[in-house]
């Protein structure tokens, strides 16, 4: 009798064990497998710094202008022409648009053009075109007018600006600004003079923008997160900008990247990393945002800027192959 009971108990326990095993196996097979993903502490996070409050965005985007540049061509130089048109370099091509933003001419300059600006007082307009190590002058109808001497192997011209009597080429390779007269004679190399520890421009990368406006020469000093007004002999006449990841500051190793001056002396400024175009008044006080990181592809680093009448901001977007156009909210179209 006892033996029979023991056998029954063993059989029941065995059946229960088999049932539990079966249920467990089914559970394991059917349970959704958690997608293995990196732990949070391994993920790079901007912690919301790439968000821009809507009330800080002062501009809206208008219809962009498509540029028929090659897939690998960088839209490196953008300038507005006196007749209301614009010119843009993409790879070794120059694209000329009329005031209605219709492409009217494309011509090759034979090598990648890294920056453009208009030669003041020329009719029809002529363009200063920067190659890696030297400047050339081209008419907008595609004729080469002049070529200036090379700045050497180490030169890496990043931008150019012109006044009525001088041309300035920002050389990121040699970390100085080269001043020429309008005939191409090299006048001087401008570098920041030591003031409180400063020793030249701090240019960690290939981004070094220069602009002439309001009668003065302005340049970015990206390693120190500032924009400087410079005298021809390198004295810092004014400087603004602060290191911060907040909206009004400049962050990362080297910002800002590009600047453009409005006629009233205020600035449109572009940063990389946290890709934003922002507005600052003539004293460097933060005004608001033209476009935030959400407006651009993350791969974009540099957007050459130009500013037009009515506060319109133009940005050359190499990823989309477009000239992006931003107009002030509330301004008439």
């Amino acid at each position: 009798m006892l033996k029979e009971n023991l056998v029954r108990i063993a059989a029941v326990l065995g059946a229960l064990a088999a049932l539990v095993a079966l249920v467990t196996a089914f559970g394991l097979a059917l349970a959704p497998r958690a997608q293995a993903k990196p732990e949070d502490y391994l993920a790079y996070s901007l912690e919301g710094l790439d968000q821009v409050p809507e009330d800080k965005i002062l501009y809206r985007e208008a219809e962009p202008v498509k540029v028929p540049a090659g897939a690998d061509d960088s839209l490196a130089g953008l300038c507005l022409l006196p007749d209301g048109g614009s010119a843009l370099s993409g790879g070794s091509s120059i694209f000329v648009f009329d005031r209605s933003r219709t492409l009217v001419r494309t011509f090759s300059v034979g090598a990648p053009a890294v920056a453009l600006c208009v030669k003041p007082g020329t009719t029809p307009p002529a363009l200063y075109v920067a190659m890696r190590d030297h400047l050339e002058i081209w008419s907008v109808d595609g004729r080469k007018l002049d070529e200036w001497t090379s700045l050497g192997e180490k030169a890496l011209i990043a931008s150019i600006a012109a006044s009525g009597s001088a041309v300035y080429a920002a050389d990121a390779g040699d970390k100085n600004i080269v001043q020429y007269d309008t005939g191409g004679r090299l006048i001087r190399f401008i570098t920041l003079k030591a003031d409180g520890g400063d020793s030249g421009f701090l240019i960690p990368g290939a981004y070094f923008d220069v602009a002439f406006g309001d009668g003065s020469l302005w340049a970015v000093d990206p390693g120190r997160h500032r924009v400087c007004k410079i005298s021809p002999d390198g004295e810092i006449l004014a400087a603004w900008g602060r290191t911060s990841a907040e909206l009004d500051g400049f962050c990362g190793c080297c910002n800002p990247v590009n600047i453009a001056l409005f006629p009233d002396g205020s600035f449109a400024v572009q940063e990389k990393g946290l890709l934003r175009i922002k507005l600052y008044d003539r004293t460097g006080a933060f005004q608001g945002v033209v476009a935030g990181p959400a407006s651009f592809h993350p791969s974009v680093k540099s957007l050459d800027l130009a500013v037009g009448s009515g506060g319109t901001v133009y940005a050359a977007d190499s990823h989309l192959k477009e000239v992006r156009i931003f107009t002030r909210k509330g301004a008439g179209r």
Partner: protein
Amino acid sequence: MKSKKPGKNPKKKMTRREFLRVGARAGLALGAAGVAGGAFLRGRQTADLRWQLDPDKCIQCGRCATHCVLTPSAVKAVHAYDVCGYCELCSGYFKPNALLLDTAAENRLCPVSAIKRTFVEDPYYQYTIDTDLCIGCGKCVKGCQSFGNGSLFLQAMHDRCVNCNECAIARACPARAWTRLPASAPYMLKGKSRGSGDAKK
């Protein structure tokens, strides 16, 4: 009249059974030779190739740290010094909103403190990777690519990689950034060494 003489006909007709037997033997022999040859060639091919991460395709998702069969991962951050800006505010070293530019842990991006910061001269600093500590998460690479020159990048180190036939990271990589390179040049480098593939250069 022609007469058939025994032994005059040298060709002996093969019976069906003999034909099938010979055919089966030949088929088996050919199949075995094919399998052996294929295995040999595959083994040779695998032995001559190494898995590597293409830094131009890498999106720094973090899976190199979590999916390698080794712990820590065989993937490490590598620094192309000729591309680096030697910045005081290195975006591969500091968090984007670091309070101070010092070596305090709360300001540093690397979760395992694998980057050493050394003062060179005002205002320049050198950044060196301690590969024994590095876990290959790519946070520094993401920071450097986002804000800086992109001098930091990830590579599978072949003094550690066990060269799995099917690399576990390659299978998990969302950017399909893993490829196989000849064992003689198993690296994809940046800077002046780009294209050389030889880590000694």
